């Protein structure tokens, strides 16, 4: 049943851009970008229980990798994506090592510090990293190209995430999330799996960051990776439902399409409408759907199954 839904969704996503204007194709690209970033964060926070408010930093790293490779070495844009994945994976592991000693609020603070400081680096090393005037890729790309690439990456990374999480590694992650002591005593090597989770999660964010820069006309600049970006990804993951892959699409749709809908908020208007609507919806989701959209899906699924069981005709 789930596979049928996925197949239909895949076909719909593949055909969608041909019916959309360039502007709406652009919006769909942002949904794909947030999809990938939220997926990565979900692996770290939802499945392994390590909170991070710093994924904007990994997006920045990935974005700048792509821009520098394109600007300085004229590398093919798609070829920069695996490099971005690899480099941010390494950065994620590096961050994960000291993070072994931290948890909860302290880990959140440490990753928050990352979110604040990393995007400032291009201002410090402005000769190499472009400074406040930013850096540009060597050529721009069309909306439809970007749509194809970003949703292909989303599909590939979703598959990677799914394969990772359904096997031994996924079980180890969930064990760590539920109880580190129990996991350790069951033979799960905590340091390895926890840093691996950080690495994978960061790698996903890195690819999202590369696509994010490409969606910004190939222009990378520190202001694009402000702290709010990290918070948005976390909120998207919470709305999606931590610990489940199926709600990620809803979380991404929420974050990606919100600016579009909140621009026409009555009374408050467009300049603060986005912030107000954002805040309101987050509060509502936390109150009514504490397990996010995935929780809602799970409840619907179980009530559907109960309905079938109790239906004498169904057997």
């Amino acid at each position, binding site marked *: 049943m789930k596979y049928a839904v996925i197949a239909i969704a895949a076909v719909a996503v593949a055909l969608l851009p041909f019916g959309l204007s360039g*502007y709406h194709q*652009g919006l769909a690209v942002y949904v794909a970008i947030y999809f990938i970033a939220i997926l990565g964060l979900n692996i770290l926070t939802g499945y392994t229980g390590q909170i991070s408010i710093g994924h904007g930093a990994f997006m920045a790293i990935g974005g700048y990798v792509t821009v520098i490779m394109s600007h300085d070495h004229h590398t093919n844009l798609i070829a920069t994506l695996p490099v971005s994945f690899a480099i941010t994976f390494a950065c994620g592991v590096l961050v994960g090592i000291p993070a072994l000693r931290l948890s909860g609020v302290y880990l959140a603070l440490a990753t928050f510090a990352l979110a604040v400081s990393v995007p400032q680096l291009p201002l410090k090393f402005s000769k190499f990293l472009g400074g406040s*005037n*930013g850096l540009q890729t060597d050529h721009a790309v069309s909306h439809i190209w970007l749509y194809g690439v970003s949703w292909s990456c989303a599909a590939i990374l979703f598959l990677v995430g799914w394969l990772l999480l359904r096997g031994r590694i996924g079980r180890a992650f969930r064990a760590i999330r539920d109880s580190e002591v129990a996991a350790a005593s069951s033979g799960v090597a905590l340091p390895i799996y926890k840093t691996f989770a950080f690495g994978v999660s960061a790698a996903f964010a890195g690819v999202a960051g590369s696509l994010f820069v490409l969606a910004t006309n190939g222009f990378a600049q520190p*202001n694009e990776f402000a702290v709010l970006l990290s918070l948005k990804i976390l909120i998207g993951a919470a709305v999606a439902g931590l610990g489940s892959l199926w709600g990620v699409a809803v979380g991404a749709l929420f974050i990606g399409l919100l600016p579009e809908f909140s621009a026409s908020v009555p009374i408050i208007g467009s300049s603060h409408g986005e912030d107000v609507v954002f805040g309101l919806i987050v509060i509502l989701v936390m109150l009514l759907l504490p397990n996010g959209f995935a929780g809602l899906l799970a409840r619907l699924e179980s009530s559907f199954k109960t309905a079938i069981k109790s239906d004498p005709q169904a057997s």
Partner: protein
Amino acid sequence: MGRKGKIFAAVAGAALVAGIAVTAAFGAHHATPGITATEIKIGGTFPLTGAASLYKTIPAAEKAYFDYVNDHGGVNGRKINFEILDDGYDPSRTVPAATQLVEKDGVFAVFGSLGTAPTLATWGYLNSHKVPQVLVATGDSYWGFSRKKYPWTIGWQPDYPGEAKVYGRYIAAKIPNAKIGVLFQNDAYGKNYYAGLRVGLGEAKAKIVDAESYDATNPSVQQQIIALRSKGADTLVVFATPVPTITALATAKAVGWTPTTTFINNVSANRLFMLSAASKGANVDGVISTTYTASSTTQKDLPGVKLAQALVNQYAPSLQTSFAAGDGNIIYGFGVAWTFVYALQHSGKNPTRASLMAALHNLNTSKNPFVYPGIKLQTSAKDNFPIEQEIMIKWAGGGTGDWQPVGKLLNGIR
């Protein structure tokens, strides 16, 4: 499918293809987007929220001016519909906003967008779509030099390196024994200013005893001020954004240093910032800068300032307080909007995007009431900088004082 069915399908298919071809052929007659018989639609991106939101008075003033023009019949009977979008100074928001303006809202031109990075993020896209990106609110000189590659982009205000040359020439001429200490932001913004200063100084650049830079990420410039003092500088030149400038002035006083002359760049010379610096203890008297707009506080008798006051009262009452306090951004906004209307009036009875650019590339008018008296807006095939004149100003009156003009209007600052 029977034989009749196949014929029917073939005919229907042919009709469909023919219909599409005909529509495409007619559709190929491109009407200029954003212009109807009664309306001209334009839009721009500005930091209405975020760290740079103090500039939001600029689009507010521009809208007020367009409302005034619309009340007086518009331009050739067309009213100007100005859409203001917030990008929070974040290029990743500027790009979708610009895309929205062009592809969803179908604007005639992108007007007045603020910020170097936001403009750099969008000029490739706008130029490749042949959408005018006009009168951008940033003083970097890229827009003046790039007419060949980005012909649809043009700036308005005097550029930063040109302004820095003015300071250089002034020092070389008037302060022969200066020991110059320069504080500049360590990126393209600050370095372009510093390079302009050295060009303006000419041989006098040997008098630079020290140049200290600070990172945009760390506007605490105390170490740099102390270093400049210790190297014996008596003429301080500060090329910084408002916050570090205010900090530099206050810090100089705090460490007991009184340079004989201090120069600050025009971007940081808004009267509101000077009052802020004075309130933090800085020595503001005698600080020198430049301006190119009329002053709402010291030039109240000018027709342009009187008009500006009337516009604020009628169309933008929320700006009254800052106007009265001397926020130069408001008259700046009026000046830019005036220029756009002037260009529209010279784009023919039925403006097209190309005719708008032609008008902006051939400006030659001294009638802008909002710029400093005597300033001419001039562009040509060889000159893509609309304003290249400035006048030096000096602060007097301490914590409640104001800028006073010094000397004559300087021409050809570049």
